[in-house]
């Protein structure tokens, strides 16, 4: 599979060179002319759809307000960022602004020396984004700024909860277990999970870890890429205890999470299961998987319950999001000003309209559905937002963790094997 890399790279390089020669500087550098005119190149992953339009409007509006600044948008396919960004950061011609997911990936880019520390420029307003912006910090410095957020929690069917006699969502794991029993008694599958995709399994284990581990431990463990703290073993044991209640659908190990009516999202959408632990995007995934037009209004949301005796925060949230970084080729103040504009209420309202996630700025929350507003409120009140472990860790470690958790779901391995998988993957880097 590596086989075509070099010829392909050569072809891409040749094509890129020709394109550059033909089109001038479509690639990177922010150009500043003598009369103070600045052009910022902006790599976004919005190649189609409403978000592309939102960004185009934002670029035009920003230029109108700042006539000396021109934003040149370069839409790039989402999957291409993983290869294009490292290459661009290794060159002298990186884009001025580019798509940034934060976490371990951002941390691995910082040593290139091309990312701008935005802290001095955004300190005046970044606070209004809440704890979310921490996901784009490296060693306390803001190297990126989010424009939308994702939060993982439970999406549940209010009608099925009512049928099982559950009057309010569970606040603790024992309450969740009691609800599982009630739902089973009412012949309703309590929880759907798409284990075929592995990452939905990881949400479960990671949330138990968040409830068991103090925030400081989470932070240091992510940084050290080490899960040897005993709280992570406790998380595995909590998961085992919970899974002993057999809360998931039959054959969950072979169920996809988002594709088809038989997926975990499809099961909740079609009333075949009462709830699932998923991201804020889930209602959007469910809608096309059912003929039930009122599905969105039938859904409720509640956060992952607290674990009695757990040393972790009961309100910390698991999530992630999308953002942007500025590079050193762009005037830092101008670039930061543009990111501030992206996070302003008018632009954020349009981002919500594009249905890509929750707005980074809560001022735009009026455009959300009531359930989404609840997610956002909860997320903004959270003392800490833990980035998905597989994003927070280097890619190979994250994937090894997901695989180990998926094995654990399948009854393979032990609490220790999850921890060992991480240390082993780290040693193989």
């Amino acid at each position, binding site marked *: 599979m*590596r086989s075509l890399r070099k010829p392909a790279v050569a072809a891409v390089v040749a094509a890129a060179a020709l394109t550059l020669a033909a089109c001038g500087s479509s690639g990177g550098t922010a150009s500043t002319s003598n009369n103070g005119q600045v052009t910022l190149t902006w790599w976004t992953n919005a190649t189609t759809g409403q978000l592309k339009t939102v960004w185009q409007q934002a670029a035009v509006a920003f230029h109108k307000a700042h006539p000396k600044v021109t934003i040149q948008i370069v839409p790039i396919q989402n999957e291409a960022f993983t290869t294009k960004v490292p290459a661009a950061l290794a060159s002298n011609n990186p884009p001025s602004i580019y798509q940034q997911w934060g976490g371990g990936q951002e941390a691995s880019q910082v040593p290139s020396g091309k990312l701008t520390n935005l802290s001095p420029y955004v300190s005046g307003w970044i606070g209004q984004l809440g704890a979310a912006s921490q996901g784009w910090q490296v060693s306390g410095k803001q190297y990126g700024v989010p424009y939308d957020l994702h939060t993982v929690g439970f999406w549940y069917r209010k009608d099925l909860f009512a049928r099982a006699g559950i009057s309010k969502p569970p606040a603790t794991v024992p309450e969740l277990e009691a609800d599982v029993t009630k739902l089973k008694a009412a012949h309703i599958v309590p929880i759907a999970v798409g284990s075929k995709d592995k990452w939905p399994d990881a949400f479960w284990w990671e949330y138990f870890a968040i409830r068991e581990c103090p925030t400081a431990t989470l932070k240091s463990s992510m940084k050290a890429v080490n899960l040897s703290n005993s709280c992570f073993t406790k998380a595995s044991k909590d998961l085992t205890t919970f899974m002993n209640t057999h809360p998931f659908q039959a054959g969950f190990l072979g169920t996809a999470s988002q594709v088809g009516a038989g997926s975990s999202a499809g099961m909740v959408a079609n009333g075949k299961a009462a709830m699932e632990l998923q991201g804020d995007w889930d209602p959007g995934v469910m809608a096309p998987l059912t003929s039930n037009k009122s599905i969105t209004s039938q859904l409720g949301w509640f956060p992952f319950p607290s674990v009695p005796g757990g040393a972790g925060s009961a309100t910390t949230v698991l999530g992630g999001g999308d953002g942007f970084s500025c590079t050193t080729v762009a005037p830092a103040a101008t670039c930061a000003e543009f990111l501030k504009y992206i996070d302003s209420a008018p632009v954020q309202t349009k981002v919500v309209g594009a249905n890509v996630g929750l707005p980074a700025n809560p001022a735009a929350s009026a455009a959300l559905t009531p359930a989404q507003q609840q997610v956002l409120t909860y997320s903004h009140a959270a003392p800490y937002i833990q980035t998905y472990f597989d994003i927070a860790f280097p890619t190979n470690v994250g994937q090894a963790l997901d695989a180990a958790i998926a094995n654990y779901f*399948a009854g393979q391995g032990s609490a220790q094997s999850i921890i060992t998988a991480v240390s082993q993957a780290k040693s*193989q880097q």
Partner: protein
Amino acid sequence: MAVAGDTDIDIQPGPVTPGPAARRRRLGGPGLRRKAELTLLLGPALLLFAGFALLPIVLAAYDGMYKWTGFGPLGSFAGLYNYRLVLDDPVFRQAFGHNLIIVAASILIQLPLGLGMALLLNRRIWGRTALRTLVFAPFVLPYATTAVMWLLLLQPGGFVDQVLKLAGLSGLTQLWLANLHLVIYTMIVVLTWQFFGFAMLLMLAGLQGIPAELLEAAALDGASAWRATWRITIPLLGPTIRIWLFLSIVGSLQVFDQVWIMTGGGPANASSTMATYLVQRGFQSSEFGYGSAVAVIMFGICFIFALLYQRFVLRRDTAGALTRAVG
């Protein structure tokens, strides 16, 4: 040119001894022509083969010696470290084991099934053409289509389960894709369904090459149909069976599409193959150096098998068919 040169000489009246130049042409002509032909006919193919087969193999072997995430320049040189890690990894060994199970199943199930069906459909029976088409049809389906179709059929409570229930066999319903001990055999059923038509087609083609007189003579000598099949038809089908075995074994070692779409190699690697392992580690985990090592090991296994098979099994079939240099 060489031909024109020869003609020039031949039309000279009387016995003429060719001059030095003509002799050179006469001697060098066919050689040049041969070289030109070889260059023209083999050149493009060799170029493509070198560029798209040999070079990538060499590059993959080279990349496999680095700890490389796929971004930027190759990372640190690790020698054979990646290769050793792959061979030591129980997950890779498990995946290889699954490949061997698929190889065994294809030989033990597809061969008798394909051969039996070919013998049956070689007779003049009613609906023969329709049956042949029906059996061969799955092979023509794109692998991805087959995978999605079976994925839907095998859902818990899906079509297969419903059919079993209607047949009064509800006790046989299973979690076909979620049961760790069953999933690899489910995959074998799907692969057999897709590929046994190909075995049948090859065998049918082979049967056409068996002279009818032999079977008639055997019948006149009083041989039963079973005996004639066992002693005449099957031995004469040998070359076809051996070629099919080769294709089937190499294909089984490289199985990817159906497994990837239906199970992704899971649950818990219970249906993984070498190819799904390669994609998981190389692409999903962004371990391109390691992935390259997996690719090279997979290639090595297939290559060694192919060489041995060629040397010990196929040699007698291809011996008469190979073009040899003459003179």
